[in-house]
């Protein structure tokens, strides 16, 4: 299962990666599978694991284009305190809206799940991720899972936890068929932990400092081991905090891998004084895009990296990056006609799988042709997209850009950059453009379906080439085709290849999403 430097084992099709590794289809893959020959296949994951991830938008980068998840906020209590969280408003990093979201009882939650699953047939995952710690609220969390499993047995159940209470609940998690568990692990060294966690509440006592962090890390790693021994897939979330745990996260990655973790999701710290978090008030900075990518790259050899996390709200609904929770407020739920029909859901999803396989096969054929030697140059490009892996968004309408790294290995997704700044409201277009350029300042080009004259000129001035001749075309094919022309222009002296600078990660409030 371990695939050296390649991260996207979980991306089905995996065309770009497989070409990067094999440079064509001559060699068989390391695992002995015929990955090139089965472009729509299950990569080299064991069949059982593939079944679990292929429709989970967070566990498979590719699945996130096709499948949706929903979170229900039934669990407001928490048993630890983090310096990046202000429970009074929101947890900016774990995206756990506290007082802002509607809290549901397990019964209300189950009803909501039915309504959403009736409306969105590609909704495959129900997650409980707070706003507090779901395992600090075990009754509510497990009751919800139980009720949902009864009425919607085809939904995957997914749980996020800080891990403190995890070892006590392994049997229940297994019994209720929870297939996916995310543990937030920010350190394995208690000295570092003491800088992140002011206290924990454990065994009826409040612990602080290094002692608290020691208990927390022991419980997290123990829980992780117990879960993976039972075959439950575990994702580890880590918040990257510059100068505190940034270097250390490489150790964390190794430690969780050796205990069987499946996926590692390193998220940037979101820190701003107006969230009122300890870090925010202290002026703790967030990482830049370059720093985040470098850390993700250096952990990549250890285990699969997740790079498409949107740091969603604890009550988010829909495809990642497309929040539909406003359609399903308690008020609106009352008017939704619930027609939960497993068969029609399955039929819909079967069609999705078919389309997915066909697309992957076509993409594979195209890319084999394109991935002729392009040399060692690598560049980043930003893409405005509304989904379906197409360049199909206008520059001016884009709320986020997907960033791809182009190399002889193809176009590799490395993250997204949000540009819907919360504080943007009062700013003029000019200021807005500047923030967009800052967000993609490490990119050589930006691909859009359409762009106006003024932003075009500004982008060119900033050194980012606006590319609109591939409007409504597939991202991977178009970006590589452009990359070829780029390299040609470098070779014939028309342009000079220069390194780009760093980019800023958006500091907008996630609570503004709804």
């Amino acid at each position, binding site marked *: 299962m371990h695939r050296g430097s390649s991260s996207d084992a979980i991306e089905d099709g995996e065309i770009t990666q497989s070409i990067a590794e094999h440079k064509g289809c001559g060699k068989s893959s390391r695992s002995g599978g015929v990955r090139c020959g089965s472009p729509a296949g299950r990569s080299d994951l064991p069949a059982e694991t593939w079944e679990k991830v292929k429709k989970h938008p967070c566990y498979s980068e590719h699945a996130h284009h096709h499948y949706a998840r929903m979170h229900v906020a039934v669990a*407001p*209590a*928490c*048993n630890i305190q983090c310096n990046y969280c202000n429970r*009074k408003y929101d947890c900016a990093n774990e995206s756990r809206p*506290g007082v802002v979201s509607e809290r549901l009882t397990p019964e209300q939650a189950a009803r909501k799940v039915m309504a959403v699953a009736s409306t969105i047939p590609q909704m495959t995952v129900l997650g409980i991720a707070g706003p*507090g710690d779901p395992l600090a609220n075990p*009754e509510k969390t497990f009751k919800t899972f139980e009720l949902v499993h009864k009425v919607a047995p085809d939904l995957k159940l997914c749980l996020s936890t800080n891990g403190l209470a995890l070892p006590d609940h392994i049997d229940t998690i297994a019994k209720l068929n929870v297939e996916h568990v995310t543990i937030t692990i920010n350190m394995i060294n208690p000295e570092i932990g003491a800088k992140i966690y002011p206290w924990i509440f454990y065994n*009826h006592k409040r612990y602080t400092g290094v002692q608290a962090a020691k208990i927390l890390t022991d419980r997290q790693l123990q829980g992780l081991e117990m879960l993976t021994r039972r075959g439950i897939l575990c994702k580890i979330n880590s918040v990257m905090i510059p100068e505190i745990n940034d270097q250390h996260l490489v150790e964390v990655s190794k430690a969780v891998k050796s205990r069987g973790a499946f996926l590692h999701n390193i998220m940037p710290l979101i820190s701003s004084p107006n969230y009122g978090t300890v870090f925010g008030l202290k002026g703790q900075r967030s990482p830049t895009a370059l720093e985040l990518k470098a850390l993700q790259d250096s952990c990549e050899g250890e285990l699969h990296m997740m790079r498409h996390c949107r740091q969603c709200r604890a009550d988010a609904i829909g495809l990642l990056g497309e929040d539909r929770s406003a359609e399903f407020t308690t008020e609106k739920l009352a008017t939704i006609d619930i027609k939960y029909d497993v068969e029609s859901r399955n039929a819909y999803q079967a069609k999705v799988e078919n389309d997915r396989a066909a697309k992957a096969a076509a993409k594979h054929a195209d890319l084999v042709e394109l991935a002729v030697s392009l040399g060692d140059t690598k560049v980043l490009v930003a893409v405005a997209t509304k989904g379906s892996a197409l360049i199909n968004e206008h520059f001016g309408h884009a709320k986020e850009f997907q960033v791809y790294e182009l190399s002889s290995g193809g176009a590799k997704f490395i993250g997204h950059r949000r540009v819907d700044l919360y504080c943007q409201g009062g700013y003029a277009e000019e200021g807005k453009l500047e923030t967009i350029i800052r967000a993609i300042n490490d990119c050589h080009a930006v691909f859009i379906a359409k762009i106006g004259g003024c932003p075009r000129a500004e982008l060119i001035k900033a050194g980012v080439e606006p590319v609109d001749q591939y409007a409504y075309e597939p991202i991977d094919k178009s970006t590589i085709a452009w990359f070829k022309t780029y390299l040609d222009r470098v070779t014939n002296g028309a342009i000079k290849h220069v390194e780009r600078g760093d980019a800023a990660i958006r500091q907008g409030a996630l609570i503004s999403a709804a």
Partner: protein
Amino acid sequence: MPFKIIASQCTSCSACEPECPNVAIAEKGGTFMIDPKKCTECIGHFDEPQCVAVCPVDNTCVLDTSLARYQARG
């Protein structure tokens, strides 16, 4: 002497409610309150008052010094 919850600071996170050994804490219309007749400061149950230890907002679960009982002791 009972503890009380300062309502203006409480985030209604509900962490305290299940921890109270005397079921003294309850939610009413979204706000959490301690029933002074039931609260024993956790004496005899735990070393620390549980509501204080688990509450994420410091100084939100505090001794209710306004009560006559407390002042008499004082």
